């Protein structure tokens, strides 16, 4: 007689918190877009990742592939330019996997942001606030050029493992959740990893899917995490030709939709989530107007609580 295994209620234990990245829930919106016949809007809740954002996926994959092929090891420190969600993701994953981590960020990043990264033991290097995120990119490239043996530079804007994390993760999860029935996919462009990788994966798993990127309409905008391509260093992983279209999103519209998501759907998400849903709604409206039916999927990169609240307390700029 074989021994009876105890019944398990809930999940099995995992070896490290890093194994909890991904497998995020897909939620149907009940009010936003409800008036559109035959079109359903779904949102992928990336804020459910352990670090609170979509960036846990590419950060984990870039780090684990580098550990596996020896580009990252005991003698090296991970360094990249990021002040936002990727920085938080690198910092906690490095702590969990026992890797040293340094982040280059513009000095005007909120004190709260700096403290989050430091809480995970990351070392911070500051760049010129007026040069923005591109200034941080240039500074990290200089650091790496000076001491190439000291650093592992994942380069989230140029690393194919960034979109790959979405192709093998996000896209597969979406296709499985909807039994391959995905008419359209919409996502904001920061590094473009989410939109490029998920689109690639979905094209294989949900034939006929149309994929759209959402881009801020203004160069100085309030959609944190997104990049205005015309005024920025264009990420090497970005290839506009692979997409079916690009939606230009004014900050005000993204903000208004973020608020609506809170009030009408119970989702308190960041402004880039608002922009993504506003873009998805445009696609859904076009489909409905053309008499098409189907599921429109987008991504909610993070929660609202990361944003302006902490910034308000930084009365004096600390250069």
């Amino acid at each position, binding site marked *: 007689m074989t021994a009876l295994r105890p019944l398990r209620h809930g999940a099995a234990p995992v070896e490290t918190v890093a194994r909890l990245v991904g497998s995020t829930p897909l939620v149907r919106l009940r009010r936003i877009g409800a008036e559109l016949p035959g079109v359903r809007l779904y949102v992928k809740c990336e804020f459910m990742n352990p670090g609170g954002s979509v960036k846990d996926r590419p950060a984990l994959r870039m780090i684990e592939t580098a550990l596996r092929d020896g580009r990252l090891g005991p003698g090296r420190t991970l360094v990249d*330019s*990021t*002040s*936002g*969600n*990727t920085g938080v993701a690198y910092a906690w994953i490095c702590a969990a996997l026992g890797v040293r981590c340094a982040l280059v*960020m*513009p000095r*005007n*990043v*909120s004190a709260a*942001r700096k403290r989050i990264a430091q809480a995970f033991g990351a070392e911070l290097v500051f760049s010129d*606030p*007026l*040069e*923005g*995120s*591109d*200034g941080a990119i240039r500074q990290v490239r200089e650091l790496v050029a000076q001491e190439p043996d000291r650093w592992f530079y994942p380069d*989230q*804007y140029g690393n194919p493992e960034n979109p790959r994390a979405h192709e093998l993760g996000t896209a597969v999860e979406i296709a499985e959740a909807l039994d391959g029935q995905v008419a359209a996919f919409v996502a904001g462009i*920061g*590094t473009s990893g989410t939109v490029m990788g998920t689109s690639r994966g979905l094209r294989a798993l949900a034939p006929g899917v149309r994929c759209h990127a959402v881009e801020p309409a*203004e*160069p*100085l*905008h*309030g*959609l*944190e*995490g*997104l*990049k*205005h391509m015309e*005024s*920025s260093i264009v990420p090497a992983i970005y290839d506009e030709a692979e997409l079916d279209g690009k939606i230009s999103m004014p*900050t005000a519209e993204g903000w208004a939709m973020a608020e609506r998501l809170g009030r009408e759907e119970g989702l308190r998400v960041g402004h880039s989530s608002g922009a993504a849903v506003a873009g998805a709604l445009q696609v859904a409206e076009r489909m409905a107007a053309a008499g098409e039916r189907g599921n429109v999927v987008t991504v909610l990169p993070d929660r609202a609580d990361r944003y*302006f609240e902490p*910034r*308000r307390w*930084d*009365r*004096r*700029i600390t*250069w």
Partner: protein
Amino acid sequence: MPVTLRLPAVLAKAAGGKTVHEARGATVGEVVGDVAGRFPELGPRLRDAKGEPYPYVIFYLDDEDIRFQQGFATPVPDGAEIVVVPAIAGG
């Protein structure tokens, strides 16, 4: 004495290719208006239709956030420096 307005690099294109501008004005709003008057594309990047600063653009007057003072009505001392910084960090 004129004051200095420093813009973030992403706005250089809207401001004649320069990020550092000499300007005049008794308040932050007037200084911004002075420079925006020279570069028509710049104004709508810094102020909304009502002439107020966007919440995602922060103005520091000699290193102090004007939202904790009188906003665009904050008086500007001679030789002051106003720095415009995006409120957001990105990526």
